[in-house]
């Protein structure tokens, strides 16, 4: 007897390129759940407009490049697949200005942030925010090209470097107040509607990225941390996200929201099976009922227009 369409779980697909420990752990977790997963190696994949209906698929994107991941999400959504994370979420998280805009619209606390397009406006923003300031590329990861500037001379030198580097991403200046954090920042791993784990990243470098050697310690996800992290995740559109939080004197502030999270170094310190949590979430999405699927499509349609 065949099941009605709405009762059948959708097929799970994971699109990846280089296999990092995260992807291997995810495949192992899905295997432990006894789930059949289609694995797609992105460099061997291509898309033709309108050729395939993927409305029976839930797709997890685990590709390294932000640009590639965003294009994949848009194409797969166009074919009807539910993509984790959705294209609109990847778009917001991959651009710090877009993240700040989404957080501001939702009233989520964040460091004071100014986006400017000319040297004069950048310097005016720095003086308004107060020294030192932090200047970041709007697109970038692992703390690369993030600069802490203590005076006008440093900012002018940075602007000159960016202008010589060229390219549109260096012509938008994302300026934030410097938060004098207590030698660490916090990260909350959000899977769907829950914070499944939280860590503190501690290091001597003022940029406490694990890619820069920061040490990871598991922390309890208190009520306030959970509230702010879940509001931040919802503000960018939800999904599987890592929310970075700064402990400021005025409370927790959201630094950024990451859509392509790495978690290999966080499983041991937290004792949480993060890949298992993600795998279970994917399975739940594959079993989502017809009304939930319809809501997802509607949400996507609204976002595409707005």
């Amino acid at each position, binding site marked *: 007897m065949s099941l009605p369409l709405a009762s059948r779980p959708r097929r799970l697909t994971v699109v990846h390129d280089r296999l990092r420990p995260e*992807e291997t752990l995810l495949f192992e977790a899905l295997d432990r759940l006894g789930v059949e997963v289609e694995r797609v190696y992105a460099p061997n994949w291509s898309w033709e407009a309108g050729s395939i209906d993927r409305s029976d698929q839930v797709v997890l994107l685990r590709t390294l490049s932000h640009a590639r991941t965003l294009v994949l999400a848009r194409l797969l959504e166009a074919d009807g697949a539910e993509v984790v994370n959705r294209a609109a979420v990847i778009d917001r998280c991959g651009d710090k200005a877009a993240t700040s805009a989404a957080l501001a619209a939702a009233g989520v606390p964040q460091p004071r942030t100014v986006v400017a397009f000319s040297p004069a406006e950048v310097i005016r923003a720095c003086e308004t925010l107060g020294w030192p300031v932090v200047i970041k590329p709007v697109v*970038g*990861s692992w703390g690369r090209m993030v600069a802490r500037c203590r005076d006008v001379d440093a900012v002018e030198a940075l602007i000159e470097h960016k202008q010589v580097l060229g390219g549109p991403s260096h012509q938008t200046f994302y300026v934030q107040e410097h938060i004098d954090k207590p030698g660490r920042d916090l990260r909350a791993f959000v899977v769907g509607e829950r914070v499944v784990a939280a860590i503190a990243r501690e290091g001597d470098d003022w940029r406490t990225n694990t890619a820069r050697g920061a040490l990871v310690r598991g922390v309890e996800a208190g009520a306030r941390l959970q509230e702010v992290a879940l509001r931040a995740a919802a503000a960018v559109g939800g999904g599987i996200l890592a929310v970075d939080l700064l402990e400021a004197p005025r409370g927790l502030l959201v630094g950024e929201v990451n859509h392509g999270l790495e978690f290999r170094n966080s499983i041991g310190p937290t004792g949480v099976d993060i890949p298992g949590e993600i795998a279970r979430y994917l399975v739940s999405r594959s079993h989502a009922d017809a009304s939930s699927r319809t809501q997802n499509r509607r949400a996507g349609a609204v976002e595409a227009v707005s």
Partner: protein
Amino acid sequence: MQTLSTPYGRLDLDPARLELGELVVSDDGVELEVVSLEPLSFEPAPEEAEDWGE
């Protein structure tokens, strides 16, 4: 196990157990990504690119 010669050094591995996207390291210390299984081929794997990362 087989020993394969590549322009980036020798690899000692079991081709039947390789996966697309897997990283292997040659005896010259070069990280290579498995980009094809049939025929088996590898490409140097850069550690990072401009828009990689979380």
